[in-house]
């Protein structure tokens, strides 16, 4: 006999965390299922290699079918909010107007979204970086922008107390924050929900779901054991890959022609500047600024100042032997920035015969033009800030996986309706970035939070 829950939420990242908390607070019986392990600030891995192996799907990286693009997604209670940078940006009119036009959903407006953004920003601790928090990597990026007349801004990050003034190096929190400062859903929503009665089922992978009367039965594996769960209402929030894979494996594609389609990912292209001076880009607050130039926005790219640990930096460099050694000896004299492209939603997620997710994602001509445009600007910025040479990584990354179950009014071109319900199913909801109609060209986290809050309000109200 399997227990029948009022709600099961699959996935504990942004969407799953928010919805679990709100429903539990409202008194609902909720089970939150997560494929990854339950870590705490004391147990998060303490080096880059262990974090990569233990906190990500695929033991580190996953690839597009042509293996040109690598994807990173968290597999841990708290999802990608454990391993991402916690950057929070509101969408602008450009993004929401495009969403509204493509989906027919009328609440994709600033007027309708702002109250949700306000609530999330009130709930989380949000920090706006200041000049004294910029490390040398950021200072040089700003210098290059200002020399060339490009606008930039300080980033907004979900963090409470990073102990910057006591010399903490925030790069370590890409493997889970050891201070409970970064506002992951684990420390904000999920822990609070657990106190209110939420059950968290970690290390459990839902393989398939099946409609059962007005509810659903879930077939899962947990540490090699088969498990089944039942619920009246099912909320899928396993991220774009997780939700699409589960929907496809469960056969929903038969009635939903748009399932798996319209996939986008903001491909990110990395560039290194090599300087004569010591930069130490991995020290202090390692990501504090980004471009904020309306010309870049119109041209479909943005530039972000970033860095990573030595395993990742070495991986991004396409050389070996002496070339690798010379590059890595310059580790403390390297700056790094990325071009993030607002890509067309031309990708598709499908299953192979074994049920494995295949990610078909090629750059379109427009994507390439935007990348080249952004790269040209970034190289100018690096040169203007004193870089003696620029190294380009051939790899590109997808960190913002979006679409495949997009929201819309037309069941032929969308998967969920404006009430977050899967077309044709009464109690099946989607609450993650897979419902994005297209790529906004802006960090998606805050909007996933906001949409999950809207879904929560709707469910609690009902």
């Amino acid at each position: 006999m399997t227990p029948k829950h009022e709600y099961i939420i699959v996935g504990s990242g942004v969407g799953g965390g928010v919805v679990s908390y709100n429903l539990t607070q409202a008194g609902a019986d909720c089970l939150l299922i997560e494929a990854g392990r339950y870590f705490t600030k004391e147990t998060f891995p303490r080096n880059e290699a262990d974090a990569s192996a233990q906190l990500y799907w695929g033991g580190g990286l996953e690839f597009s079918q042509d293996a040109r693009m690598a994807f990173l997604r968290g597999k841990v209670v708290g999802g990608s909010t454990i391993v991402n940078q916690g950057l929070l940006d509101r969408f602008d009119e450009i993004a929401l107007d495009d969403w509204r036009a493509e989906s027919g959903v009328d609440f994709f407006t600033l007027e309708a979204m702002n109250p949700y953004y306000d609530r999330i920003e009130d709930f989380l601790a949000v920090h706006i970086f200041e000049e004294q928090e910029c490390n040398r990597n950021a200072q040089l990026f700003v210098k290059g922008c200002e020399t060339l007349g490009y606008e930039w801004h300080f980033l907004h990050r979900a963090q409470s107390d990073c102990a910057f003034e006591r010399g903490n190096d925030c790069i370590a929190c890409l493997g889970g924050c050891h201070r409970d400062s970064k506002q992951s859903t684990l420390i904000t929503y999920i822990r609070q929900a657990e106190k209110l009665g939420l059950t968290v089922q970690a290390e459990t992978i839902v393989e398939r779901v099946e409609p059962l009367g007005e509810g659903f039965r879930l077939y899962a594996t947990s540490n090699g054991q088969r498990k089944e769960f039942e619920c009246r209402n099912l909320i899928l929030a396993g991220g774009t890959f997780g939700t699409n894979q589960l929907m496809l494996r469960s056969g929903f594609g038969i009635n939903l022609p748009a399932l798996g389609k319209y996939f986008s990912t903001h491909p990110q292209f990395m560039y290194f500047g090599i300087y004569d001076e010591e930069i130490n880009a991995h020290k202090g607050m390692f990501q504090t600024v980004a471009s904020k130039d309306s010309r870049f926005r119109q041209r479909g790219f943005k530039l972000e100042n970033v860095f990573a640990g030595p395993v990742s930096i070495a991986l991004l460099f396409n050389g070996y032997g002496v070339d690798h050694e010379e590059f890595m000896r310059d580790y403390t004299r390297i700056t790094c920035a990325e071009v993030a492209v607002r890509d067309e939603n031309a990708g598709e997620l499908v299953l192979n015969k074994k049920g494995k997710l295949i990610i078909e994602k090629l750059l379109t001509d427009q994507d390439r033009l935007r990348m080249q445009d952004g790269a040209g600007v970034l190289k100018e910025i690096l040169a203007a800030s004193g870089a003696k040479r620029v190294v380009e990584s051939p790899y590109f990354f997808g960190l913002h996986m979006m679409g495949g179950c997009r929201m819309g009014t037309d069941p032929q071109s969308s998967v969920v309706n404006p009430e977050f319900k899967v077309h044709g199913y009464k109690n099946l909801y989607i609450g993650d970035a897979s419902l994005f109609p297209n790529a906004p060209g802006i960090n998606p986290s805050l909007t996933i939070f906001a949409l999950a809050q809207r879904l929560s309000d709707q469910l609690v109200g009902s």
Partner: protein
Amino acid sequence: MQSNYLKPAALKGLNRIGDVLIPRSGDLPSFSEFGGIEHIDDVIAYAPKEDIAILNLVLKIFSFLPQRTLRWAADQMVGAWYKDGALAALLRELNIGLKGILFSCYYSGKAGSRYAGKNPLDVIGYSVNRVED
């Protein structure tokens, strides 16, 4: 050394391709000298089973290929980024997969039990200060 995931021939192959990609250079040890391979299970324990099976096969081949052929293979993997087709895609995936494992062993800070030289992290100047309350 032993691994719960890689067979002895694969471990030998990993050290051999590792030394091609990360040879000894001044105070930077070669991949095999550093001995980070002793911690290989920490790196691959969470990788999909099918990936580990492929890795065992590829690394077993690397265990007996001549050094010159290993360097040729490394060149092909690097060059695959600029080519199209299914073979190039396979080489790209192999390239980033292998380098991910090698660099994770090499830049994890965890040396082999018999290594007494400088840690690569110290040589490149990487240190992280964690302020934990």
